[in-house]
């Protein structure tokens, strides 16, 4: 019997005819009619006008007919909320039918009707169904609670359904347990309060149900286990042992969920042997994912990418399974390539390079490009393989395939950056391929190479000149690079480029309407016209080395994604908050900051996929960071005495150009980072507020101002020393007397040049705090002495040490660990303090952002009856965790702080510090 005949009625008057048939007394006629209605609905015809008529067929003993009517009601109830109420009676009656199939069907369908006046009537049948004697009805009812919660959360809470659901975790039937887990997990995700907590009590019930429920139920339960943080390593190990057999399940979803649980619980197992055992068990199932359907392979590979980043040892010997097959879909090949780069090491690089070379001769252009780029990334990643990589790239250049050559030149430029003065011998080969370059990125790379090595390329000026001819038609990336390269050439070989530099500066500043180009042109112009040597120092300075971080994820993001293995987040490599609107409100704010820095490599908009530029995102970031650090180090290394203050503020942010010389990057970054290393320049916005600590009245021969600061994981004492005497002060030695923090300078001899009479210099003293040890009673004041050599004059002074300088950058706890730790610290260690807020105006959000900058991290924030409660954590250099709960009330200038710490003795000083942090803007 074929149903297709139901689709064939298209004549006029059809609706009328259907009405007639629906009114028929004969059951089979009615059924035929309803089937026609459903068929019409399926092909998208509007049959909602038949609502009343179809509803009339609902009271039937024919199960098939009943199901069809239910299906119809489900689809159209929204259009007829007033008439849908007529169905309630039948639903309620069916919910008490002796046949469990019908009882479940009624509850299930009612739950799907998202109409208010129906949901009201759902409560009673649902309550019965939750206690039904038949497990099929109970498991259906469990899911129904989640449906109801989606429509009306208050109703579910008021009716006490959540408690019933929690009780169901102990149900004798594993399917019921699994569905209760699924419902609770979903509700917990959106609810403001915690409705589903796994504790040692229900943990065992879940583990027991795990062995007996269906494959899907196993997935629900395994996922829920990730919410629990084991009490100790023993418990963690027990859970791992119970979960590990699931790795043998035929269903890949079960396998991936089991991997997720193991990845989480292994963090709590200190015993290296056990960790190794479990890691060993995970490898074969992960490899087997690659023999499944391509879609599953893709999902598996995205997850393996995360797993390899966290625990590379799991798959370290499995390189070969990631070799691409000719008939793999392109999306699988691309992911395999990425993992091959991750797993490449000195031992396997030879076979990996052979593979890459093979891929580079395939015909899929994007795949070929990625393969060439992979060779470059391996060269940068593995020092000892760089030579072989270069050789392969040169071989590929010989193929003369246009896009291969271009891609090779782009990566060779990066290799030059990583290994300066090592492979320049190949420049001649590269120059031979100039004419085949037609893509901006390749052109720009080649130009960069020519500029950077202008002194070794005899005809550099001719080459650059040939590019200069078409300057106006070039892409801005190429223009910028050409400008820089010609300036470099000029600085190295002034005679050859006199004319060219003039031309390019003219073109850039006068004939271009690209602000980046114009500004860079002006900067060079001023530099060159002011001081040739200074310009040389700036433009030709040594560049920081690069590393390959293209695919590396930020640590905290990686942690979060590991907790999301097998979900969409693990496919996109983005935290769920960034693509899901409906999540607990409190979670959303908390991630903001990381979100902004993170450059996910899986972008799903139009320029999706590994575009030729993809490789740069991460690298660029890294470069910027390095430049930033370098800038910090160079603060005292006054490069040029130019007054760039007016220019500096006018400079735009050029974040998309990897070629700019480091100094330019510095200018570009200057808006974020204070200002460029202008040394004594008065325009410098000092990052630390120093206060005078000695010789304030100028009666002494020296004046000292200083402050402790923390940046880049280091604590330092920043001093400004002014020589008020008539003699040169040559060397200084600083000494810290015994203090409550146990800190001291790393090197007592200050690293600073001699100070001439009347001169002021700044010096940064790195502080040793790795072995900080706190002694009682706590006193924040540190006594210090400074001796000036050679006069051996000694000055004594004291400074307050801000406790927060010892807060480390990695003090952010995961939500679970936070909760676990809070619970594990005894009540006796808890302290409460009310902090007066003395700021003129404040709002909790910006205040907390400020604390975040000081490494006092916010974990979660909740709003509740006009109160904002924020949970924060920090960790000191000697690994003492301090957890604090701050409560801000509306219209109150008092903030309540409840804090706990593993070391109660630090609490008074912490509270004092907290007060300072909050009240010092």
């Amino acid at each position, binding site marked *: 019997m074929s149903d297709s005949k*139901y689709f064939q009625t298209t004549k006029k008057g059809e609706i009328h005819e259907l009405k007639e048939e629906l009114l028929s007394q004969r059951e089979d006629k009615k059924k035929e009619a309803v089937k026609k209605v459903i068929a019409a609905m399926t092909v998208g015809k509007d049959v909602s006008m038949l609502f009343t008529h179809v509803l009339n067929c609902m009271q039937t*003993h024919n199960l098939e007919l009943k199901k069809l009517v239910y299906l119809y009601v489900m689809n159209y109830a929204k259009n007829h909320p007033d008439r849908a109420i007529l169905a309630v009676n039948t639903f309620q009656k069916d919910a008490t039918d002796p046949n469990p199939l019908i009882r479940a069907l009624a509850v*299930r369908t009612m739950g799907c009707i998202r109409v208010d006046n129906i949901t009201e009537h759902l409560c009673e049948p649902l309550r019965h169904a939750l206690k039904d004697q038949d497990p099929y009805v109970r*498991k259906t009812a469990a899911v129904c609670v989640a449906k109801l919660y989606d429509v009306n959360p208050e109703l579910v809470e008021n009716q006490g359904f959540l408690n019933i659901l929690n009780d169901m975790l102990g149900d004798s039937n594993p399917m019921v347990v699994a569905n209760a887990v699924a419902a609770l997990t979903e509700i917990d995700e959106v609810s403001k309060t915690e409705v589903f907590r796994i504790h040692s009590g229900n943990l065992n019930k879940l583990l027991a149900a795990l062995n007996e429920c269906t*494959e*899907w139920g196993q997935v629900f339960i395994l996922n829920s286990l990730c919410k629990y943080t084991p009490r100790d390593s023993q418990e963690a190990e027990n859970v791992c042992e119970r979960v590990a057999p699931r790795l043998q399940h035929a269903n890949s979803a079960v396998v991936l969920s089991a991997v997720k649980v193991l990845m989480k619980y292994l963090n709590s197992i200190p015993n290296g042997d056990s960790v190794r055992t479990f890691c060993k068990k995970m490898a074969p199932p992960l490899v087997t994912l690659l023999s499944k359907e391509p879609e599953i392979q893709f999902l598996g590979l995205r997850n393996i990418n995360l797993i390899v980043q966290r625990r590379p040892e799991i798959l370290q010997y499995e390189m*070969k*399974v990631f070799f691409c097959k000719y008939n793999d879909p392109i999306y699988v090949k691309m992911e395999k390539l990425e993992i091959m780069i991750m797993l490449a090491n000195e031992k396997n690089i030879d076979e990996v390079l052979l593979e890459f070379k*093979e891929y580079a001769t395939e015909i899929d252009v994007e795949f070929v490009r990625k393969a060439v780029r992979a060779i470059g990334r391996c060269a940068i990643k593995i020092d000892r393989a760089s030579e072989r990589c270069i050789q392969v790239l040169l071989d590929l250049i010989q193929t003369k395939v246009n896009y291969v050559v271009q891609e090779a030149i782009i990566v060779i430029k990066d290799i030059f950056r990583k290994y300066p003065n090592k492979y320049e011998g190949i420049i001649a080969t590269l120059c031979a391929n100039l004419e085949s370059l037609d893509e901006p990125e390749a052109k720009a790379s080649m130009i960069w190479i020519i500029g950077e090595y202008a002194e070794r390329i005899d005809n550099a000026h001719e080459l650059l000149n040939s590019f200069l001819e078409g300057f106006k038609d070039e892409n801005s990336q190429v223009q910028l690079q050409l400008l820089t390269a010609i300036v470099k050439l000029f600085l190295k070989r002034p005679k050859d480029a006199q004319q060219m530099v003039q031309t390019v500066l003219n073109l850039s500043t006068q004939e271009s309407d690209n602000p980046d180009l114009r500004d860079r042109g002006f900067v060079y112009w001023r530099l060159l016209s002011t001081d040739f040597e200074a310009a040389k120092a700036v433009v030709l300075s040594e560049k920081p080395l690069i590393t390959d971080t293209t695919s590396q994820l930020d640590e905290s993001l990686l942690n979060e994604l590991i907790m999301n293995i097998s979900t969409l987040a693990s496919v996109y490599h983005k935290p769920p908050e960034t693509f899901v609107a409906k999540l607990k409100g409190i979670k959303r704010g908390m991630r903001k900051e990381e979100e902004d820095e993170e450059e996910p490599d899986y972008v799903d908009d139009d320029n999706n*996929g590994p575009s030729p530029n993809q490789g740069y995102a991460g690298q660029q970031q890294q470069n910027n960071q390095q430049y930033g650090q370098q800038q910090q180090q160079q603060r005292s290394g006054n490069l040029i005495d130019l007054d760039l203050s007016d220019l500096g503020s006018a400079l735009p942010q050029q974040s998309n150009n990897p070629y700019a010389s480091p100094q330019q990057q510095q200018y570009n970054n200057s808006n974020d980072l204070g200002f460029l290393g202008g040394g004594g320049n008065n325009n410098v916005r000092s990052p630390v507020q120093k206060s005078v600590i000695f010789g304030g009245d100028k009666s002494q021969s020296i004046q000292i101002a200083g402050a402790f600061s923390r940046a880049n994981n280091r604590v330092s004492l920043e001093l400004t020393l002014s020589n008020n005497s008539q003699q040169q002060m040559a060397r200084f030695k600083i000494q810290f007397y015994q203090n409550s923090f146990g800190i001291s300078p790393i090197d007592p001899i200050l690293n600073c040049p001699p100070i001439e009479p009347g001169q002021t210099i700044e010096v940064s003293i790195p502080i040793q705090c790795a072995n900080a040890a706190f002694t009682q009673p706590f006193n924040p004041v540190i006594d210090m002495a400074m001796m000036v050599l050679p006069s051996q004059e000694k000055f004594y002074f004291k400074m307050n040490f801000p406790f927060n300088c010892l807060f480390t950058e990695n003090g952010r706890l995961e939500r679970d660990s936070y909760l676990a730790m809070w619970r594990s610290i005894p009540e006796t260690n808890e302290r409460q303090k009310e902090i007066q807020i003395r700021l003129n105006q404040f709002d909790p959000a910006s205040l907390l952002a400020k604390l975040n900058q000081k490494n006092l991290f916010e974990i979660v924030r909740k709003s509740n009856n006009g109160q904002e409660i924020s949970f924060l954590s920090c960790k000191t250099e000697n690994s003492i965790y301090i957890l604090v709960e701050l409560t801000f009330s509306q219209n109150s200038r008092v903030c309540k702080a409840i804090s706990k710490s593993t070391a109660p003795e630090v609490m008074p000083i912490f509270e004092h510090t907290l007060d300072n942090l909050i009240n010092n803007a």
Partner: protein
Amino acid sequence: MAASAIFLMDSKGKVLISRNYRGDVPMSVASKFVSKILEEEDLNLKPIIQEDGISYIYVKYNNLFLLATTERNANAATILLFLYKMIEVFNEYFKELEEESIRDNFVVIYELMDEMMDFGYPQSTEPKILQEYITQEGYKLERGAKGIMLPAAITGAVSWRKEGIKYNKNEVFLDVVESINLLVSANGTVLRSEIVGAVKMKSKLSGMPELRLGLNDKILFENSNKTGAPKGKGVELEDVKFHQCVRLSKFENDRTISFIPPDGEFELMSYRLNTTVKPLIWVECISDTHAHSRVEYMVKAKSQFKGKSIANNVEIIVPVPPDADTPKFRCTVGTCKYAPEKDAIIWTIKQFPGGGKEFLMRAHFGLPSISDEKPATKPPIMVKFEIPYYTVSGIQVRYLKIIEKSGYQALPWVRYVCLSGDYQFRTS
């Protein structure tokens, strides 16, 4: 975790049937999905895509799209696996899932969709059990105990087998099928060789039988050898996957494979071995291209398995340029055919004896005097074969114990076969 809606679409993206499970994603997004996948280049067509906050997870099957949508951080693995499970169930119901069968069975499909997933959470997906209470014929529902009732299995611990099955002759058939995946580089180095095996079972047993399968599992052997059990060569299985009927924790504890089987055919277990075995059939190909005039091939095939065995239906598929013409062949054994639709020569050898036998084939093609400059693709040479009564891994079924409370005797039958899987020789 959950899928919001599921669509079955034809190859042009027309929705054939759909089910909205959660109502949070508008059903109209199906058309957005269609335009996205029709516009997008192949490269960017991943099986999981996101647009405007909605994630689309889909698989392609027989000119059909099975699509799931969600706006949450759903469990993508579950959804993908569920889509495949749907295909399995529909195939079981209608022989072959295709556009036609969907139209012919839309009522049952609606029922199945209602039963297999609730609010986006997969529920019962065992085809055998679903067939118990969702049938294609309309049925009367009678008052009382008679009429369609819920199979107890659906929520029971044994959710894959109903009670009261009866056979006059109790039999079990076991098929041990191994397929060999091989990847050889153009210069003849074996890059990867892998055995993917499966134990398939067809059970025709009455009641609720308890089965225990004994294999020559190396780990088990090593354990039992200490206690003086019979000696023999064991096989080290690298990654074993079991049907959900097998008690995993029991296997974890003492490596025994014990289970209550579903009725009929199913895959009991699969395993994988990464051992390097000598490629069973070795192929070498020398090609000589005279541009714009002709190309010649010399292909040598050699058997490297035991002399007692014979490989059946061997096909060696040698790629040729797409613009090649006027084929000429010469081979010592078998037949050669030019398959222009595959741009390949197919050399078929019905029976290929083992023990180092070597066969030769020569082919000659004309090439057009003009050709486009596009870089040539380099498809690999593929080989297909099957070798009966043979396993590469050496796996053996040592016993299959069947215990049922009625105490009947049942006979197990075991067959072995070795197949080619992804068996590729790269060409230069």
